[in-house]
C-alpha cells in the first residue's frame, strides 16, 4: 500500500509541473503582449504630447517678435554625456532644432531627474528648460530656430520663416512593463513645422494709402485745419500712454545703419507698371495740402525735398527686400488675408456699430478687432492690436490706438473729429468685388482734420500683424532617418 501512495504523489507532481509550466508560459506571453501594448500606447501618447506642444506654441507665437524669440535664451539642464555634431556643420543645424537631445529624452526620468552634468544656454526655447509637464508622465519641449534666410545670423529673422520643433515624451507608468529588459524608458515623438509670418503689411509710413487717386471722406478737402500731425519718423519707445499724453519721442535712424530710415509721413501707392504708379494719388494729396498743413507731414523721406514727407511709395514696395510686400499690389490677396483674419478676430463688430467709449485692446493685451462695415470709435477710450474695418471708419474725440489699422472694402476713413490719434500705421484702400472671386482696387476716401496725430512705429505695426496666426508651410513627424547623421 506504501507503493500505491508513492504513485499518487508522482502523478500529482508531474501534473503540477506540467500545469506550472503551462501557466508560466501563458504568463510570459501575456507579459510580452502587455509590454508591447504599453509601448505602442506610450508611443502614441508621446506623439500626441508633441502635437499638443506644437499647437500650443504655434498659437503662442502669434504675439511674439520672431527675432526677439530667437535671441532669447533659456537655461536647459544637461543630464547625459552624448555625442554632438561639429558646430557649423549641416548635421549641427538639424541637431540644434531639436529642443533636447533625443538620447536624454529617451532615458531621463524628468519627474525625478538625476543630478545635472551641466547647464546649456539655448536660444529660441519656447518652454521652460525642463519642459512642460502634461501629467501622467507626459511632457513636451518646444523651440524655434531660424531658417537660412541669407543673413548668416541664426538669431535674426529676416523672412518671417522659422522652424518650430516640439518634442514630446511619455514616461512608462508605474506598474507597466517594458520590453527593454526592465530598464524604464520614455517613448519620444517629434513634430516639426515650418512657419511663416505674413509680412505683407509691414508698412513704411504712418499713413499708407493705396489707389489711383483719392477723394474727401467728408467736406470738400482731404485735409482740414492745421492742427493735425502726420509723423513718419519711427517712434520705437512710445507707448499708448505716451500717445494719449501727447509725448512725441522719435528717431530718424531706428535701424542704426547710420542713414535715415526709409519711412515717410504719407506713402501713396498704386501698382501701375509703365503708367503713373502712385504719382497721381501723391499729386492729389500734395495739391490738397496748404503750406501750413504740409509742414505737419513729417518724416525721413519725401518726393518734395523735405515737407510734406509725402512720396510715391510704389517702387519702395516693389523693391522691398521683404518678399511679402508685393502682395499689397494684389487686391484679391489682400481681401483673402482680411477674410482669414476675420475668422480669428477677438472682437467682431457688425456694420453700423457705434463703439465710442469702449476700449478695444491694450498694450498688455492687444487684440484683433474686425468691423464688418461702418464703425465709429471715440470717447476717452483706446485700443491696441490690429483693427480692420470693411466700411467707413470714423475716429473721433480722444480715441487713441496703438498698432495697425486697415480700412479696406469701402476704403473710407474720416478722422475729422479726432484729437488723439494713432501710434503705429494706417492703411487705407478701396477694394471692389469683381464678382468672380477676384478683387481690384478703386479710389479710396479720407479726411484728416482736428488734432489728429499719426505717429509711425515699426514695432507697433509688427505687433498688429504679429497677432495673426503664422502660416504653416510644412508639417512632419521627425524620426531619426530624417535628420542627417552625426
Amino acid at each position, binding site marked *: 500500500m506504501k507503493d500505491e501512495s508513492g504513485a499518487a504523489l508522482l502523478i500529482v507532481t508531474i501534473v503540477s509541473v506540467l500545469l506550472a509550466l503551462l501557466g508560466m508560459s501563458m504568463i510570459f*506571453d501575456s507579459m510580452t503582449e502587455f509590454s508591447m501594448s504599453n509601448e505602442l500606447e506610450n508611443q502614441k501618447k508621446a506623439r500626441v504630447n508633441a502635437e499638443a506642444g506644437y499647437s500650443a506654441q504655434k498659437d503662442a507665437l502669434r504675439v511674439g517678435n520672431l527675432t526677439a524669440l530667437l535671441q532669447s535664451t533659456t537655461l536647459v539642464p544637461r543630464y547625459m554625456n552624448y555625442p554632438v555634431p561639429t558646430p557649423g556643420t549641416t548635421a549641427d543645424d538639424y541637431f540644434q532644432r531639436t529642443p533636447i537631445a533625443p538620447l536624454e529624452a529617451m532615458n531621463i526620468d524628468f519627474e525625478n531627474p538625476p543630478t545635472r552634468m551641466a547647464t546649456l544656454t539655448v536660444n529660441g526655447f519656447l518652454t521652460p528648460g525642463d519642459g512642460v509637464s502634461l501629467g501622467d508622465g507626459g511632457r513636451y519641449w518646444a523651440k524655434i530656430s531660424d531658417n537660412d534666410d541669407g543673413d548668416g545670423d541664426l538669431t535674426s529673422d529676416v523672412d518671417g520663416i522659422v522652424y518650430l520643433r516640439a518634442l514630446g515624451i511619455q514616461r512608462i507608468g508605474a506598474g507597466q512593463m517594458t520590453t527593454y529588459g526592465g530598464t524604464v524608458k520614455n517613448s519620444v515623438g517629434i513634430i516639426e513645422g*515650418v512657419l511663416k509670418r505674413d509680412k505683407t503689411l509691414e508698412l513704411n509710413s504712418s499713413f499708407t494709402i493705396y489707389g489711383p487717386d483719392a477723394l474727401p471722406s467728408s467736406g470738400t478737402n482731404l485735409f482740414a485745419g492745421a492742427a493735425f500731425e502726420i509723423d513718419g519718423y519711427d517712434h520705437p519707445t512710445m507707448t499708448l500712454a505716451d500717445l494719449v499724453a501727447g509725448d512725441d519721442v522719435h528717431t530718424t535712424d531706428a535701424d542704426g545703419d547710420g542713414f535715415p530710415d526709409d519711412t515717410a509721413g504719407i506713402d501713396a501707392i498704386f501698382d501701375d507698371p509703365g503708367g503713373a504708379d502712385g504719382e497721381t494719388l501723391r499729386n492729389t494729396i500734395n495739391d490738397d495740402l496748404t503750406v501750413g498743413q504740409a509742414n505737419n507731414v513729417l518724416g525721413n523721406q519725401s518726393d518734395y525735398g523735405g515737407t510734406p514727407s509725402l512720396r510715391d511709395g510704389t517702387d519702395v514696395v516693389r523693391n522691398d527686400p521683404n518678399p511679402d510686400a508685393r502682395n499689397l499690389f494684389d487686391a484679391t490677396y489682400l481681401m483673402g488675408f482680411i477674410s482669414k483674419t476675420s475668422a480669428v478676430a477677438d472682437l467682431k463688430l457688425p456694420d453700423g456699430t457705434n463703439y465710442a467709449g469702449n476700449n478695444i485692446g491694450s498694450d498688455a493685451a492687444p487684440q484683433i478687432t474686425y468691423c464688418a462695415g461702418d464703425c465709429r470709435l471715440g470717447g476717452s477710450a483706446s485700443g491696441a492690436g490690429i483693427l480692420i474695418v470693411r466700411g467707413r471708419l470714423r475716429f473721433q474725440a480722444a480715441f487713441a490706438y496703438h498698432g495697425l489699422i486697415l480700412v479696406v472694402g469701402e476704403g473710407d476713413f474720416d478722422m475729422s473729429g479726432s484729437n488723439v490719434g494713432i501710434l503705429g500705421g494706417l492703411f487705407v484702400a478701396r477694394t471692389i468685388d469683381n464678382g468672380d472671386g477676384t478683387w481690384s482696387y478703386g479710389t479710396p476716401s479720407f479726411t484728416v482734420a482736428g488734432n489728429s496725430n499719426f505717429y509711425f512705429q515699426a514695432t507697433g505695426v509688427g505687433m498688429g500683424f504679429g497677432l495673426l496666426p*503664422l502660416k504653416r508651410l510644412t508639417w*512632419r513627424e521627425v524620426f531619426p532617418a530624417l535628420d*542627417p547623421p552625426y
Partner: protein
Amino acid sequence: MNPSRAFFNTCSRGFTLAEIVIANAVLVVAAGAIFSVFYQSQHSLKSQQDILEVTQQARAAMLQVSSYLRQAGNDPEGYLRDNNIPPIELLGTNYIRINSDITGAVPAASAEPLDAAGNPDGTLDNLYERVEVRYDASQECLHLDIGYGEDVVAENLSFDFTFLDINGNVTANEDDIVRVHIEVVAETEDLHPLTEEVQSITLQSEVMLRSRSFDVFAN
C-alpha cells in the same frame, strides 16, 4: 505470530485480476482527464498566441499607415501643386500612393550613402515620399513600399480604406480627400478549440491629413 509478519503474509498473496483491471481503469480515466486538460490548455495557449500575433500585426500596420497618411500632401516647395499631384492617389481597390515632400537629400556626414535626410526639397525622389500601400485580398496581406520595393508588413487580415471629404462624406475624388478611415480586421489562422471558429480582432482609426486640416492660415 508477529503482527507485522502476519500483515506481509496477507499482502504477499498478490492482486486479484479484478483489482488490477479496476486499478488500470482508474489510471486510464485519470490519465485521460489529465491529458484532456493539458490538450485543451495547449490549444487555448496556441489560440491566445495566434490572436496576440495578429493583433500586434494589425496594430503595427495601422501605426505605420496612419503615420504616412497624416503627412500626406506636405508640400512646402509647391511640387505637388505645380504638378497636379494629389496627396493620395487611388490606384485601385485598397491600393493607394501617399505623396508628401517630407525630406531631402543632404550630404552625409559619414561615408555611408544617405538615402533621405534633411528638409523637404521640392521633389518626391526620396524615401518615404511616395509610399504605396496595397492590400492583396487574395493573399490577405498588406504590402508597403516606402521606396525600397514592396514588403509584406502584415498577413491574415483584411484592410479597408474609406476616403472622406471635408464634410465627412465618402469620396472617390482624390482632390477632396481630407480624412481617411481605416479598418483592419485581423484573423487567426487556426480555429478556436472550443468554439471552432476563426478568432478576429477589428481595429478602426480615422486619420486627418495635416495638409488639409482646418487651418485658415495654412498655405
